[in-house]
């Protein structure tokens, strides 16, 4: 049976993700506001927004099918599972064998397909436009992400995310050029997948260039709250996966439950630094034209392929 320590670390991880994901979003927003010489909305603003949205009634279009109403829950469920299998604090996760890196990419794809279908459900122009753009980003970002994860898999001889991180974190320090290249590709993909500048701007509404906001234009009330929360979870999961793959130090291994006590502050510190860097990227870049996005992602995809090739050549 599952040992108690694994159960605890699993539960702790999920709770941490659900609780702290909006905080990360708030932190990034705050850093960005500081960097852009604006006054920031306060660190807890995302929680207030979620609370407000949950209290409001949901307005659903008359022409909506049930897909529209279940999609937010499915997206939320997918992101919760992603956070459960990503080793944020510990690699001792009972749920980790259920889904490896390929299934992780599949989970992101599942969420993407449902949110796109929901956007097409109403039949407004913006919804379909958003769905089309989201799928456009997805079909390039997914294979790029998979290749990034594969270059880590090749090094560690495992596709299980927990095992990859376990191997990377608890071995003598070594420089992996392939992982460095993969890290660049991962950054590109993470920016695109989380609707960040330079691919999309999460702060704007109703511009002809919006992607994520166009998808969820018809949502309101608790449905919108769930989607926003899921978006925050996605950012959290991506940040954690990136940190775990490229800066794995401090994550507790199997059989060391006490290391979790250290792991939490380490993770928060790493996330805080990551948030600042994200805000910095968003500030010094301009949003690119929509048809530059495939090029941007194709670059990420090819970089990831190069990472694999470098691994085959150098064996590292």
């Amino acid at each position, binding site marked *: 049976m599952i040992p108690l320590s694994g159960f605890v670390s699993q539960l702790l991880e999920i709770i941490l993700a659900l609780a702290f994901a909006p905080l990360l979003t708030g932190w990034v927003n705050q850093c960005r506001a500081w960097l852009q010489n604006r006054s920031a909305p306060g660190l807890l603003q995302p929680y207030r927004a979620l609370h407000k949205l949950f209290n409001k009634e949901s307005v659903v279009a008359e022409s909506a099918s049930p897909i529209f109403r279940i999609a937010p829950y499915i997206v939320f469920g997918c992101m919760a599972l992603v956070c459960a299998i990503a080793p944020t604090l510990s690699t001792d996760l009972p749920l980790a064998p259920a889904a490896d890196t390929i299934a992780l990419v599949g989970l992101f794809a599942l969420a993407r397909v449902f949110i796109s279908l929901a956007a097409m459900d109403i039949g407004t122009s913006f919804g379909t436009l958003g769905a089309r753009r989201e799928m456009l980003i997805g079909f390039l970002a997914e294979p790029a992400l998979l290749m990034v994860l594969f270059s880590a898999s090749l090094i560690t001889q495992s596709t299980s995310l927990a095992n990859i991180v376990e191997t990377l974190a608890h071995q003598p320090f070594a420089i992996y*050029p392939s992982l460095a290249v993969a890290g660049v590709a991962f950054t590109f993909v993470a920016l695109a997948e989380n609707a960040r500048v330079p691919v999309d701007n999460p702060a704007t509404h109703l511009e002809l260039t919006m992607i994520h906001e166009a998808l969820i234009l018809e949502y309101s009330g608790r449905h919108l709250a769930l989607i926003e929360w899921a978006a925050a979870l996605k950012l959290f999961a991506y940040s954690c996966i990136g940190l775990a793959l490229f800066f794995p130090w401090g994550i507790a291994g199997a059989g060391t439950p006490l290391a979790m006590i250290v792991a939490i502050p380490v993770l928060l510190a790493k996330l805080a630094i990551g948030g600042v860097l994200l805000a910095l990227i968003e500030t010094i870049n301009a949003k690119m034209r929509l048809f530059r996005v495939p090029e941007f992602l194709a670059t990420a995809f*090819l970089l990831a392929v190069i990472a694999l*090739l470098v691994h085959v050549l150098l064996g590292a």
Partner: protein
Amino acid sequence: MFFWEPEVNTLLTQSINLFATGLLVLAFAMIAQRRILTLIHLFTLQGASLVAATLVVAYLTDQHHLYYSAAITFVLKVVLIPILLHRLIDRLNVRWDVETLFNIPTTMLIGIVLVIFAFNLATPIAGLSASIARGTLGIALASVLLSFLMMIVRAKAVPQVIGFLSMENGLFFAATAATSGMPMLVELGIAFDVLVGILILGVFMFQIREQFDSLDIRHLEKLKEE
């Protein structure tokens, strides 16, 4: 000798691979880049990673002439040539030029094919070499080929010059990685050549512009005899 020295040496050897990979990625980024100004930045970065790699090789193999060549590379490729290029694009007023070129994803796909080709070519050769960084020979070769590709697909003169310089970076790296550097005299000669080459090309570009009012090298096609 300190007790941690072997470990540091392993790390340093690995870092040569890292810098080599950086060289390759930068060569790749140049192919994907449209803006001339960014191209120059990328070139400068490439020079910097080359200097770093040379320094590491020099330290590990204890060859003093490599320190000198790293210094020369630094002065030339990280300081002097970028300054010259900046002045050049200012004077030519092409600083913010965005160049339209042959479909970028297609070029990058060709680039991947080149990388595979180069890696394969270098694998048997690398087996013969006894140098510490023999795995990087394939990367150096790939960078050279990528820069060559960049020279082919570019339509303007300045990016072509940058492509030429970055090709020289790749060659220099190949020399350092495979044979622990060339004789000092040869290196000095090449450095001088590159510098003079830049100056001549700069003058040449002014002439092209005077003649055609543009830096598009397609105009040169008119020069052939009818």
